[in-house]
């Protein structure tokens, strides 16, 4: 399974709505801009967001001789995407499934998608520490280069759930690459006053307590929010933004042969 994938990166968070899908897609787009071959797998079965963010809604998955062929964002096929969103008839359709059915769907996603050769496979997950996460971890056990990026927002309510995710990673023995703090501050477009809507510094202190590398704080930037739905990379469209700087750093770290195992 996943024999032709050089590195697998899981994007996790105990909390919902902290920006896992935004981080996953921006990470994939940044890697793609650097010239890597990237796959993005969305295992959030009840709330798939990746097709919308990348402007790939209404695309179809085809069956090839070697398995399912992912949907490609670009003609050069440098970014392939797989999500349950491609398999639903309407965007209003709900996937009302209990655990075991979700488990078998994820197994299929991991085993039956023909990714070809990939430098990176990024896996976007739903919030929590349940069926989807256990299944992915069990199946990735045989994959050698595998790590997790945790996403959080600064407020205590979110940090509390992310601490549980750290425990989950430790229990299942997955390497934690680092923590990203999202939605750190908001700059009022009128008076430029920066308000820490969801307080501040929570991600950094969690990283310190749990002894995990801190990868940076991404501010709330409505310009980045607007990129959702268009499938555009922040590093390309908004090269001056903090978001772009942080993703560049993260990619430097991921592709630096001395830091990865």
């Amino acid at each position, binding site marked *: 399974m996943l024999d032709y994938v050089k590195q697998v990166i899981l994007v996790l968070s*105990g*909390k*919902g*709505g*902290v920006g896992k899908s935004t981080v996953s897609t921006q990470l994939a787009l940044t890697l793609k801009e650097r010239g890597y071959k990237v796959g993005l797998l969305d295992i959030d079965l*009840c*709330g798939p*967001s990746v097709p*919308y*963010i990348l402007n790939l809604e209404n695309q179809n998955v085809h069956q090839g001789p070697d398995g399912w062929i992912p949907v490609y964002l670009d003609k050069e096929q440098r970014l392939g995407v797989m999500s349950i969103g491609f398999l639903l008839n309407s*965007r*209003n*359709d*709900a*996937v*009302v*499934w*209990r*655990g*075991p*059915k*979700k*488990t*078998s769907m994820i197994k299929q996603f991991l085993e039956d998608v023909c990714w070809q050769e990939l430098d990176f496979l990024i896996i976007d997950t*739903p*919030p*929590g*520490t*349940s*069926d989807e*996460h*256990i299944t992915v971890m069990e199946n990735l056990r045989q994959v050698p280069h595998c790590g997790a990026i945790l996403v959080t927002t600064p*407020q*205590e*309510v979110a940090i*509390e*759930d992310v*601490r*549980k*995710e*750290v*425990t*989950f990673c430790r*229990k*299942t023995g997955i390497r934690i690459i680092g923590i990203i703090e999202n939605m750190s501050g908001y700059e*009022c*477009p*009128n*008076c430029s006053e920066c*308000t*820490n*809507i*969801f*307080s501040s510094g929570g991600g950094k202190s969690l990283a310190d307590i749990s002894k995990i590398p801190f990868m940076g704080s991404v501010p*709330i930037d*409505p310009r980045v*929010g*607007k990129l*959702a*739905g268009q499938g555009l990379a922040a590093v390309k469209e908004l090269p001056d933004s903090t978001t772009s700087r942080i993703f560049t750093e993260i990619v430097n770290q991921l592709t630096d042969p001395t830091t990865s195992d």
Partner: protein
Amino acid sequence: MSNVPENAPQHCPGTQSEDAGKASACAGCPNQNVCASGVPAGPDPAIQLIKERLSNVKHKILILSGKGGVGKSTVTSLLGHALAARKPDANVGILDADICGPSQPRVLGVRGEQVHNSGSGWSPVYVTDNLSVMSIGFLLASPDDAVIWRGPKKNGMIKQFLSEVDWGDLDYLLIDTPPGTSDEHLSAAQYLSAAGLSGALVVTTPQEVALLDVRKELHFCRKLGLPVLGVLENMSVFVCPNCNSRSEIFPATTGGARAMCAELGAALVGRLPLDPALARAADTGRDPLAPLADLPASPAVRALHDIADKIVAICEKTSS
């Protein structure tokens, strides 16, 4: 097929079919063993048990959202406070059905409390005289503890919460759920089928990424025949504390909840602005509506009282 129960999983072969309990769709269905055994059994005895246990609860409301982090738990706790503050003799209970990420103990400021067991069941934790709460958070030894459970175990926990908590007489029971349309939601709706749910309050934020998942949640409610009391739009606008200008942090590029409600025929019960003071109150667990709270009459507090009034009106109307 007439023998397919209404709340069965998709592709259920039917309880009388030869494949009952053996088809792939049966995996994970709580009735799989019953169907496979070939003995026609009645409904889950727990459903009746829960009906009796909750017979003194007037209105039971599920707080749902397909999307995470939109403020289900915050809205639940605020609504709990608002409903409890309306009448001092009204009793409100909050059940936290989010097993993997329980937030109620923190947002209500009762972390570290213990749940006690007595002859009449588990006693919930009292936040104020007339606001009580039950959450798996009270049963964990440390805040770092992760509940790494698959569906069936979560279902068992929810069943226990519904059947064994001694709420006493309640006017409102608010059930906070995790994001999604899966085990917890199906179980809660199924176990409460006999006890009678007043309906669901669906929480969303204005941006399309969130609305996309919330559409799925409305579809889920329709599939299950669960009445939708209304949709609440959270984090609508941000009022800068410095210059009081309004800005949209999560821009409603597709018309926000209003447009979605119009399209799918749901009622919009209100819009809650983003207020850093409320976020802070949720972090520290203070009651932002308490008369002595340092929160000024913020637009968020006013909006919240309006929403509580509307929900009370809807509940009273449906029960009479």
